């Protein structure tokens, strides 16, 4: 409850600041230049160019395109007395505007505009001629797949939106932009499809983004933690993707996406738990294969969370449940191990985590060596030295492998960390502890919401029509309904009868 109060407070303070900062632009050139210099603290790249007829150009060298400055601005400014309105007409740049306030002027300049001040007029004309520094579009690295488009978002907001607009040539794609962060003023955009997305949901998201009062938004992954429903939760409640086609499929299902300038990942919401285990490729392959893959991912999630813990519980407390034929090899391999199963398991799990973490930060070439040293040398040595049992190595390797099948990196991380508390619970109270852990996770998941919609849908609350595209995927003819999760205004993607005629 105290969160709401905080948000209200921050809103008030924001309004007050705005009123204070609404300072008009001085009409006098000298005053204006001094003011600008003061505001930018005599920055070295602040370029001030006086023209004879009372026109002053101010811009940041580092941000603007020199070619445009010469060709489209300087060449168009006439000599003689001119008014700002005249300049507005003369300049050959598409993005030109007139501003009366200093704050706005500084803002646009910081985004790559040149400010044109005319002596005697309390306003400036700003023309955007900023350079677009961005790398070229590349293949998706984190969500690579064999089928489907091979293109990923990059760090430029404009490019990312243009990518989406290419996929969805539709006037109903709405784009609302905000700037966030007291220090960074990063551009943030909400995209949604009018006529499909639920207006109430869009309002909710808009409110959440507007109410954020932070210093900086450097990446969408930090923004998502600010706008998701419960930032204390174990599981992420909003999905991020770097694939434009996936973002578009969300839009088409009535969801909203949030783009942040300077970040590769876009945020999609509302999402369900099950969507963290889906990949875009499931749509491209045959439905039988997609179903198989999805079921396998769910299975491997369960395996990677519980497998080691079950081993620990069974070997610490419940020897009876292991059949005799299995007990003999287990006993043989454990006979040399001096530790109780919980220590043994935690030791090895920690080692795997070390390997993974070390490998993640290293250059690829060194990373490979790392894998060989860690996996083969240390693993074999640990068994030979009698530190761990062979069977545990297999179990841990399988559960590590299984945790990589989760298509989403964030969820993969959660799963790999969740193992530790469960191993400890299993080591303390056997299957009972494991079950307590499981029930806690279940209640926790039931309690979560994503943008106010239930996180475990379509399973709870049960929406049987949406099960067709959940942990299974039925043939494309059956998945003609948009999931209810985002409360789409138009439930039908297409009508089966009309689209199914193949002659």
């Amino acid at each position, binding site marked *: 409850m105290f969160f709401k109060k905080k948000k209200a407070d921050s809103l008030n303070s924001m309004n007050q600041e705005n009123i204070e900062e609404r300072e008009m632009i001085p009409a006098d050139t000298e005053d204006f230049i001094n003011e600008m210099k003061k505001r930018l603290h005599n920055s070295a790249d602040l370029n001030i160019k006086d023209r004879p007829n009372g026109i002053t150009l101010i811009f940041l060298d580092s941000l603007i395109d020199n070619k445009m400055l010469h060709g489209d601005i300087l060449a168009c400014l006439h000599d003689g007395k001119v008014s700002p309105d005249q300049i507005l007409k003369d300049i050959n740049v598409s993005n030109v505007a007139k501003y009366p306030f200093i704050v706005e002027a500084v803002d646009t300049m910081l985004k790559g505009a040149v400010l044109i001040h005319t002596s005697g007029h309390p306003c400036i004309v700003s023309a955007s001629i900023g350079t677009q520094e961005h790398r070229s579009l590349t293949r998706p690295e984190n969500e690579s797949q064999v089928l489907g488009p091979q293109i990923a978002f990059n760090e430029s907001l404009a490019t990312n939106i243009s990518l989406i607009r290419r996929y969805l040539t539709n006037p109903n794609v709405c784009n609302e932009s905000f700037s966030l962060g007291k220090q960074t003023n990063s551009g943030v955009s909400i995209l949604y499809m009018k006529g499909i997305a639920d207006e109430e949901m869009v309002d909710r998201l808009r409110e959440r983004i507007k109410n954020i009062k932070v210093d900086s938004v450097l990446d969408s992954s930090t923004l998502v933690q600010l706008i998701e429903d419960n930032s204390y939760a174990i599981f992420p409640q909003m999905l991020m993707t770097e694939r434009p086609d996936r973002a578009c499929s969300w839009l088409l299902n009535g969801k909203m996406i949030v783009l942040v300038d300077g970040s590769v990942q876009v945020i999609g919401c509302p999402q369900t738990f099950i969507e963290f285990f889906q990949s875009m490729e499931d749509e491209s392959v045959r439905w039988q294969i997609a179903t198989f893959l999805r079921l396998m991912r769910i299975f491997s999630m369960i395996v990677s969370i519980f497998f080691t813990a079950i081993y620990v519980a069974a070997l610490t*407390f419940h020897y009876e449940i292991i059949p005799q034929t299995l007990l003999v090899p287990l006993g043989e391999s454990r006979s040399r191990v001096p530790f109780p199963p919980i220590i043994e398991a935690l030791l090895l799990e920690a080692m795997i985590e070390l390997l993974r973490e070390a490998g993640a930060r290293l250059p690829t070439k060194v990373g490979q060596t790392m894998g060989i040293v860690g996996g083969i040398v240390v693993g074999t040595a640990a068994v030979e030295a009698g530190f761990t049992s062979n069977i545990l190595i297999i179990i841990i390797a399988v559960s590590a492998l299984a945790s990589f099948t989760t298509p989403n990196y964030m969820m993969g991380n959660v799963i790999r960390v969740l193992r530790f508390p469960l191993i400890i619970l299993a080591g303390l109270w056997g299957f*009972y502890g494991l079950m307590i852990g499981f029930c806690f996770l279940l209640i926790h998941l*039931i309690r979560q919401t994503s943008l106010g919609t239930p996180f475990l849908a379509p399973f709870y609350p049960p929406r049987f029509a949406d099960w067709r595209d959940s942990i299974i995927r039925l043939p494309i003819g059956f998945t003609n309904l948009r999931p209810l999760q985002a409360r789409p205004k138009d439930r039908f993607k297409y009508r089966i009868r009309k689209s199914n005629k193949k002659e």
Partner: protein
Amino acid sequence: MKVLIEPKPQNMVNTFLLIFVVHSMQLGVGIQGFQRIIYLEAKHDAWISVILSGVASAIVGFVMVKTLAAYACSDLYGIQYDVFGKWLGNLMNILYVLYSLGGFHVIVRNYIEVIQAWVFPELPNWLLSFTLVFLVFYGLNGGLRTIVGVSFFSVILSLWLILLLAYPFQFTNWDYLFPILESSVTEILKGAKQMTFTIIGFEIIFVIYPFLKEKDRVHKHMQYGLLFTTILYLGLMVVSLAYFSGGQLERTIWGTLSLFKIVRFPFIERFEYVAITFWVLLILPNLMFYLWSASRGIARIVGKKEKKINWLLLAFLYLSLLYPLNRMEINMMNDYFAKGAFYIVFCYPFLLFAAVLIKKKFFRKKGGANVENSN
């Protein structure tokens, strides 16, 4: 206290989910060992007792829904207040709250006993009850939707346990069931009465009714839930009767758990360890709903928020669970609770229904407008 309540739309749940709520509430610790208790009364005709108790639950369920339907949107607490007046009504409300708290206590006691008898003899009471109380607290904080969700998943995720009945099924001897109707009618009826402890739980409808979305479909889904439970109990009873011999059944305290003993997979034996620990998930909805209905009752009487009362009740229950009881005392407690539950669940609803009917008939014209159903 207001007789009628208007729950917020975001707290309402689909009527369809009532099936799961009713079924998961009925399924609890009773099922772990109901075979012996019924067998002692009705011998090998115990399965008839199960059917009779199922029929009785259906009738009582019908009466309960009819009672609730006489009001637009009210629960047991409001109805008792309206029918019996302020003092007597609130006294009845407190009795029902006590009954709910008793249900919670009895379930935790029985489950802890099972855990200590089968899996961890040394694990102390305070730890086991603390973990359960913690889970209940965490779930209750999520509101009614979370509790209903837990009961939904508890049913769905434990359906596979039914399939395991196939293992004892291989070793059944159907001769044990014959001759049919050897026991007298009174014995069978007594057996049916002994089912009380196992079959109760559906009285949750009294409290959850205002929170269901489509009121006209409540009765249908209630009956589905009851039917599902009855079929499950019947199947379990028949398999147990045919699997165990009479003498064995008399000495088997936890018949259902003993059935799991022979389940055997290539990678797992002695399945009862898994089943018993898995039972946490089956008793969680019971605990949550009992505590929820108790704290709702107090909240309705006192007029405070439920969340604060949850704290107090759970702390109180936790302390009461620390008091050591031996096997005999737990048995006695079960019997007392079952006796009380028999009157509260199987007899009292008829009385209440009659009272509501009388009130409706004779006091309609005297401006008791708020009790009338809107149609």
